[in-house]
């Protein structure tokens, strides 16, 4: 064989680094793209929401505000004053301008500015959502990795069936079960969230325990199954065996070598699920009579209070899209192919 070392010299044909895969964009470009996409999504939500809450004729809206008995001319005057006869795009633009500047309109039921009803409740909703996420994410991902490291064992199989069953339960049923066990039979925790308004500090914290537990249990099976799947895949990759064969310890191999690669798809999948599951705050607030914007949302839909519905839809939309934006940006941080500029 012609094996002179010159063959191996840097200039040899095989050794020219080839450009691989897609063109790599700088990080800032990625972030701009993510933010633009999410703004577009919000725009779609706002259009849909505005459309859905403006289907009624101007007179019907006026009648809902002024009362059933109001005469026709008064209705028309009311509608005209509020620009209800304007074309759809103009009304949308006016509303959007108001919303962005903090004016959410007037509630049809309480006759107060929607913002006054919504903002105090927003705090409770945020506490509920953030506390649930902060507990659910590490616990579920930890459980998923725990299962992946024992993939195929009896423990793993039982836990998998357990997650299938838990994932089949609606939040309100998980919540009812928790109320029965901890509220009715054991009597440890309050069955609803009235303590939040009338109790002391301890009662206020206590009022959140069952709602947070409900949401955590609702998210747990989904997120731990995704984590298990990504971790199993990464742990089976040849580079993991290669790292073990270099003498690295098993924790180091799992977290540094395997999970670093499992992270980007995991973050993406988890974000989609979190957006799906955060819908649960609405259900949980309703179940525990917890005064948050979810509870107000359901009440407003029932009462046909369109300004309130529209505003709360937008706030929830912003919350949920915010989660995806954070996740998407995390992905670019984790993925070296997007990192190398």
């Amino acid at each position: 064989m012609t094996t002179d070392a010159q063959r191996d010299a840097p200039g040899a044909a095989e050794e020219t680094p080839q450009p691989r895969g897609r063109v790599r964009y700088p990080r800032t470009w990625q972030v701009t793209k993510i933010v633009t996409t999410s703004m577009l999504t919000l725009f779609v939500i706002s259009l849909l929401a505005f459309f859905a809450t403006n289907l009624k004729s101007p007179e019907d809206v006026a009648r809902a505000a002024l009362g059933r008995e109001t005469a026709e001319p008064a209705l028309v005057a009311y509608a005209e004053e509020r620009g209800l006869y304007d074309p759809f795009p103009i009304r949308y633009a006016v509303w959007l301008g108001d919303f962005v500047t903090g004016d959410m309109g007037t509630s049809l039921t309480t006759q107060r500015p929607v913002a006054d009803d919504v903002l105090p409740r927003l705090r409770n909703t945020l506490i509920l959502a953030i506390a649930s996420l902060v507990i659910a994410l590490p616990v579920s991902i930890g459980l998923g990795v725990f299962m992946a490291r024992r993939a195929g064992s009896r423990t793993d199989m039982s836990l998998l069936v357990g997650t299938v069953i838990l994932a089949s339960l609606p939040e309100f049923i998980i919540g009812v079960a928790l109320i029965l066990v901890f509220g009715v039979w054991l009597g440890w925790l309050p069955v609803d969230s009235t303590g939040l308004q009338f109790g002391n500090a301890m009662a206020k914290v206590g009022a959140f325990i069952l709602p947070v537990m409900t949401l955590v249990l609702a998210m747990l099976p989904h997120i731990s199954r995704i984590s298990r799947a990504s971790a199993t895949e990464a742990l089976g990759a040849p580079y993991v065996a290669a790292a073990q064969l270099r003498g690295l310890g098993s924790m180091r191999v799992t977290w540094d070598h395997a999970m670093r690669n499992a992270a980007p798809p995991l973050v993406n999948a988890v974000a989609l699920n979190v957006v799906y599951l955060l819908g649960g705050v609405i259900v949980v607030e309703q179940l525990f009579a917890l005064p948050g914007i979810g509870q107000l949302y359901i009440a407003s839909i029932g009462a046909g209070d369109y300004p309130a519905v529209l505003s709360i839809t937008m706030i929830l939309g912003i919350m949920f899209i915010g989660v995806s934006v954070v996740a998407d940006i995390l992905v670019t941080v984790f993925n070296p192919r997007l990192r190398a500029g």
Partner: protein
Amino acid sequence: MSGQSDPLVVKDLTVAYRRRGGVDNVVVAGVDMALRRGEIMGLAGESGCGKSTTALAAIGYRAPGVRILTGTSALDGTDLLGLSARQLRGFWGNRLSYVAQNATTALNPAIRIGEQIAQPLRLHLGLKGDTLRARQVELLGQVHIPAPESALRRYPHQFSGGQQQRIAIAIAIACGPEVLILDEPTTGLDVTTQSRISALLRELVTKTGVATLYVSHDLALLSTVADRLAVMYAGEIVEQGPVEHFLAGPSHPYTRALLDSVPSARERRAVSGIPGRPPLRVVLDACAFAPRCDLVVEACTQSSIELVAQADGSAVRCLRANERSQRSVRTLEQVSTTEGGALLDVRAISARYPGATAQVLSDVTFTVASGETLGVVGESGSGKSTLLRCIAGLHPPISGEVAFDGQMLAAKAVRRPREIRGRMQIVFQNPDTSLNPRQSVAQLVGRPLRLFRDDVSRGDEERVVLELLDQVQLPGDILHRYPSELSGGQKQRVNLARAFAAKPRVLLCDEVTSALDVSVQATVIEVIAAIAAETGTSVVFVSHDLAVVRTIAHRAVVMKDGRIVEQGPTEQLFRSPEQPYTQELLAAIPDFHRGTRAS
């Protein structure tokens, strides 16, 4: 055979896979071997023979489900198989290193290569700061990575496949190991890259004296790179000895049959496959090769056969070692290119992938005569497969045309007349994805009969399918089986039966043997050559393997970067290539019969 001072001495190694139900499936039995300082030991065998399992077990690595039943593997007197996982970690990457087949997957894609090299250095040698950095740079230099300083900051995907394997080797030798294990380190790489990596390994072994085990399915490659060879069959070493012993003519019937199935790029020679399939586990009370051996006598199946030392320093596990069988491999006479006009006429084809701007094919022109076999060779990315898809009407070219029997063809298969579609059949590379898993063999092979063969009535279909299966040397009882129940070689022969069912005049073969073991590849080549000769079918045979092309083709076309570099009668092309690229390709091919070795 093994001195006490050898760095790694493996004795009586027996390994099993644990199956559900608790029964162990023994896959490696009673392996003895010793790795010597400054030597490369080659471990050869077909897929599933237990060679990789042996290599991993020898360094104490237990993949999930693997159990080491007996044996010792001593590194300087310490039995690795008796160590705890924690103790083993102190050896791995330090005194014992392992390089896996595919560096693209064995390097962590999310970690910069500098860090990947640094990890064992920090862990085992406690290097840090400037010393660490100097060693990192030195290592990359040793494996000839250009600009090592800046390379440290890059990620694996920013290197070519060959470079990635070099980096993996750099990590393996980082701590100056006494033993290096390489598992198919160049499989999947282009032949020119492969030869450079072999040369690098020889250089490192000479320089550092590391005792090396080189595992490969490629006997020819091993004969050029190794000092000693061991051949495995069904979990046992059937023959081992100095490489000269093998070059002089191996003793075990399996080794000889294996060599007969390896096509040669140096001479035009027919290949013959080994009938049957290897057993999937160790056969304990008989010769495992007996059912496929043409020298078999009754004693072969009565008891297990011992590995017996021979006069020339080799050892053979056969009762009839050194007896030669009747089967001989013919040297094919040069077939003169068929006279008569072109059957297939490819004129100035250019093509690109959808959405891409770069061309995969530029101005490719050639003809295929009736009854002729044309080989198309090139390395990966040369456009040879796309060319075949253009001819088959699966990839419309951007310019150029294909004529069949003087008739211009539409770019898309659907728009071509039925007779033409029947007359031109294509067989793909991967037997696992080219058969619909939901159809039985009878349905698969019967479909072209219904579409193209008006002479076959519905009642006759089954009979014709059986005839076709017989032609491709498949038993009739697979008629109602599904692809998942067939081996790779069987699936590829079903593909051939389906292609021949349409009575084609041109058969397009896209790397049809590259996913198969050599002995199976030989059978497939035999089948294609025999049927093509018998029916006068023309064949366009695309392959990256020059030896295969030399074996089967009358004429050959060499492609590079979407262009034809050189074409001509196979013999002429291989004996006196005119273009530098063809010469380079030919020089890079390892050949068993050459016996020259890099050192």
